[in-house]
């Protein structure tokens, strides 16, 4: 498991972009051309002025004048292309990651989800997946563009004065890679501390807002706000500490760019004196160096973004790598035919490999037409039996057979088609009553829905609603009263007619 997580989560997310690499390359080239055009504009202008100071004829400058104007126009167009293409690619990758993550979650739910707390899931799924978009737009693209544009600029300078080009290359490298990475290393420790504080804060806020009724009724509102305030103080203090460190990067960046220009100037002036550089080229060299740091300007933010995304990528990878709670057959048997006979022989199951047994030594037989009632106090394993039969969990011992074949030899959805379930606390989706009822049978007509509602004694209640079946249920069914919510919950399982 740890080995799988160490397999660099960031490259794994980047791999999602492979089908879109052409688009990514176009965006990166456009980005590189944009910055290069800016650098070239100032360098060429420097040449224009220095050459003009030598008072040649106007025709000697005609080409330079046109170049300067073209660079002035081209930059805007290139920038537009880069931003649009980059965002489009990022959004497409985002969609892929979201769907892949969902499919994985769907495969491991609900037994594999026990490790995740719901508030964490909220932060995890909304924030981390959205951060994937940033990974490309603000992380990968600026780096690619900077490397291309920076290499071009240094090469151009090398034709003028090699030592100055060396100084510029070193300066760009330090400002674009060393300083940002250094900043990240400084910030990392407080960021790790910050993540725990953020998690607590999110949990406290969610707790206070979701549990508002209980808090207010029991006069504990101030205590809950106090808990949020305390968690917030810890998180905010962490952010303030991180601020000093990440701002240090901004200061260092300015220092490195300033010193590089200074060094190029010093080397250039010396070279002019030695006669290895003419004074027109000096102006070009210094102005190019001055503009060159625009190339690495976005990199500190990009590196921070990459580091932030790395934590999220690790969490996404953890979900993608979560072990299957059940065995899925490579070549499943055809769906079990009805009537269905289910036998459990010496079945034992637990939720974690070393955890306590949820059930053990269980023998049960379900034959067509017979009703078996499973009675026991809470925590005795009734839900586990349901989870085993619904293929949410695999037995660790013994055998479960459906029509004489191992239950694990069938496609899990086929098993669920013949073994209906009634979860203890079914989820009501934030949609209309109609959509919630249709869960069990997607094509059901209104008449069928109303028949089923009648069977669950919900018909008078639905009829009394102003919008009838179109009434929204609210998040978690909050728009419904407790009784009717439970009614429409317990109603849904009436649909399939499992034997």
């Amino acid at each position: 498991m740890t080995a799988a997580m160490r397999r660099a989560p960031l490259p794994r997310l980047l791999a999602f972009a492979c089908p879109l690499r052409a688009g990514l390359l176009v965006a990166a080239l456009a980005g590189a051309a944009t910055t290069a055009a800016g650098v070239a504009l100032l360098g060429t202008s420097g040449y224009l002025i220095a050459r003009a100071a030598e008072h040649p004829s106007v025709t000697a400058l005609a080409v330079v004048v046109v170049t300067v104007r073209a660079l002035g126009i081209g930059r805007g167009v290139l920038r537009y292309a880069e931003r649009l293409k980059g965002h489009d690619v990022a959004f497409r990758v985002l969609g892929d990651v979201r769907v892949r993550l969902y499919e994985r979650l769907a495969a491991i739910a609900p037994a594999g989800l026990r490790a995740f707390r719901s508030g964490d899931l909220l932060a995890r799924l909304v924030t981390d997946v959205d951060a994937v978009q940033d990974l490309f737009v603000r992380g990968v693209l600026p780096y690619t563009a900077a490397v291309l544009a920076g290499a071009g600029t240094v090469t151009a300078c090398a034709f003028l004065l090699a030592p100055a080009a060396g100084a510029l290359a070193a300066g760009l490298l330090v400002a674009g890679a060393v300083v940002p990475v250094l900043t990240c290393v400084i910030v990392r420790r407080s960021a790790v501390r910050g993540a725990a504080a953020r998690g607590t804060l999110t949990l406290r806020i969610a707790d206070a807002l979701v549990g508002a009724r209980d808090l207010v009724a029991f006069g504990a509102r101030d205590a809950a706000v106090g808990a949020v305030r305390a968690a917030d103080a810890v998180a905010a203090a962490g952010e303030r500490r991180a601020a000093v460190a990440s701002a240090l990067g901004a200061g260092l960046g300015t220092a490195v760019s300033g010193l590089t220009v200074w060094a190029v100037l010093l080397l250039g002036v010396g070279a002019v004196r030695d006669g290895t550089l003419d004074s027109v080229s000096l102006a070009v060299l210094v102005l190019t160096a001055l503009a060159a740091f625009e190339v690495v300007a976005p990199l500190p933010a990009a590196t921070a973004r990459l580091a932030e995304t790395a934590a999220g990528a690790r969490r996404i990878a953890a979900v993608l790598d979560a072990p299957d709670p059940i065995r899925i057959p490579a070549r499943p048997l055809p769906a079990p035919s009805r009537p269905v006979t289910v036998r459990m022989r010496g079945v034992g199951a637990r939720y974690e490999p070393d955890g306590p047994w949820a059930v053990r030594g269980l023998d049960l037989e379900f034959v067509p037409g017979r009703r078996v009632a499973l009675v026991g106090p809470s925590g005795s394993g009734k839900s586990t039996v349901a989870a085993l039969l619904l293929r949410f969990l695999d037995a660790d011992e013994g055998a479960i057979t459906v029509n004489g074949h191992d239950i694990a030899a069938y496609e899990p959805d086929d098993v669920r088609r013949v073994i209906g379930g009634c979860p203890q606390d079914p989820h009501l989706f934030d949609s209309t009553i109609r959509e919630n009822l249709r869960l069990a049978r997607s094509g059901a007509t209104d008449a069928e829905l109303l028949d089923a509602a009648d069977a669950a004694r919900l018909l008078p209640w639905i009829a009394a609603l102003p919008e009838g079946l179109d009434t929204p249920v609210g998040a978690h069914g909050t728009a419904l009263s407790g009784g009717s919510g439970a009614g429409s919950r317990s109603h849904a399982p009436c649909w399939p007619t499992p034997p």
Partner: protein
Amino acid sequence: MKPVDPRLWREAGAARAFLVGTSVLGGVTTALVLAQAVLLADVLAGAFAGRTVGALGPALAALAVVVAARSASAWAGETLALRAAASVKSRLRVRLVDHALRLGPGTAAEGELTVLATRGLDALDAYFSRYLPQLVLAVVAPCAVLVVVGGTDVLSAVVIAVTLPLIPVFMILVGLHTRARTERQWALLERLGGHFLDVVQGLPTLKVFGRARAQAAVIRDVTDAHRRATMRTLRVAFLSALVLELLATLAVALVAVQIGLRLLDGGVSYETALLVLILAPEAYLPLRRVGEHFHASMEGVTAAGRVLDVLATPLPAVPETRARVPAAERMRLEDVTVRRPGRDRPALDAVTLTVRPGERLVVVGPSGAGKSTLLSVFLRFTEPAEGRTGFADVPPDEWRRSIAWVPQNPHLFAGTVAENVRLGAPDADVPRALRLAGAAEFVAALPQGADTPIGERGARLSSGQRQRIALARAFARDAPILLLDEPTAHLDAASAAVVRTAVERLMEGRTVVLVTHDHAWTRAADRIAKIADGRLTVRAPQAMWS
């Protein structure tokens, strides 16, 4: 959506202090940028004229000092900005939670508010550390550059002065066009997050009905739709980037060409031309940066605006306490009517009811008849639209001090079992409350007894166990009035029996209103009321059983 929301400055003192600090630093930075340009031009012109490194020494040394000062200023500015952002976010976050809780339960969507209070406000970081300092520079730097350039070369100053104002004009034009769309994008993103979470939380239900896989396609469709909508917005929003780059670079090109041609004629000196060329981009740079950060930082402003909207919702008026009548003698409703938005039929319809002190009233009725609304009125979660109550002149917080409530779905908070029991009584005897609630046994079996963390929303406990913790909470509260909502619904027979015994123990010596659809509870009642379609009729217990 203004770039600078005046409410934000009124709300957060840290923001005001920051604005002053960042303005000062903006001035310092601008002065250093000018000094750097003057020194660079001086050295380059000196070298052009054939002066040696030694002769240029003082200017080179001064340049190094300017570089050091600029670095210090950049470091200080960013520190200031990030710290201010942390303070402002912290203040808004706590105020939001506090205000939402004071507004009363159920007035706002809790999931949306949670996202807003955490992720939403985080967007303010970019606003403070990138946008605002650049906004200050965008005002200070161009003016300073114009003054310096104007002092040396008027024609270049005119070119800059003519093109500069076009940038904000275009920015505002594009901004006006994208404003509504950006706000809609934010709402869409929030709904997308809500939908994703809803689907993930409902995964077990979806799997039972074999619909889990179909949802993957729905998620892809929703995400694709979001991408298309966002790209439509961005196609226009990025026009601002196009226009800004175009104006800035084209203006620099124009300045370079015109001053180069005049240098050719000997109209200006080489040093002046260099100074103008180095300074010209500096006039546009802050404006361009403002444009770059505008898009990202407006998300923060929108989130802050939504927080400020919630904070602007007035709190319900709290009445002055009058005569000190015991709470148990105030349990009166007269012609109380409650309406829910979007429903024709009132949730409670002219209900008149007096609960006598020490009486056990059981209210029975079908789902949706108004049972929970009745308790909600007694809890002061719902203010009646019409009618009078015996407790209207008591401040709600004080009134609730006399009430213990056992809700249908008690919310268990992240924390230990003991902390959950002590919710309404910080000094309560927890072991006694657990024992009375019939919870002592299973709590003792937990790894750390009553000090065991119960996990978010009580994830480690069964419904019956959670219900018993809620009962222990009510025992610890030890209030004269007891309100119970379906205490044994959804429980298995064994759990229900334990809970029933505990509830009967809890009812002793208290004024009780118990609402249920389970007629078995009527055996414990002094009086029985029936509720149907929001109308309440009171009967004696004998009448029910005859």
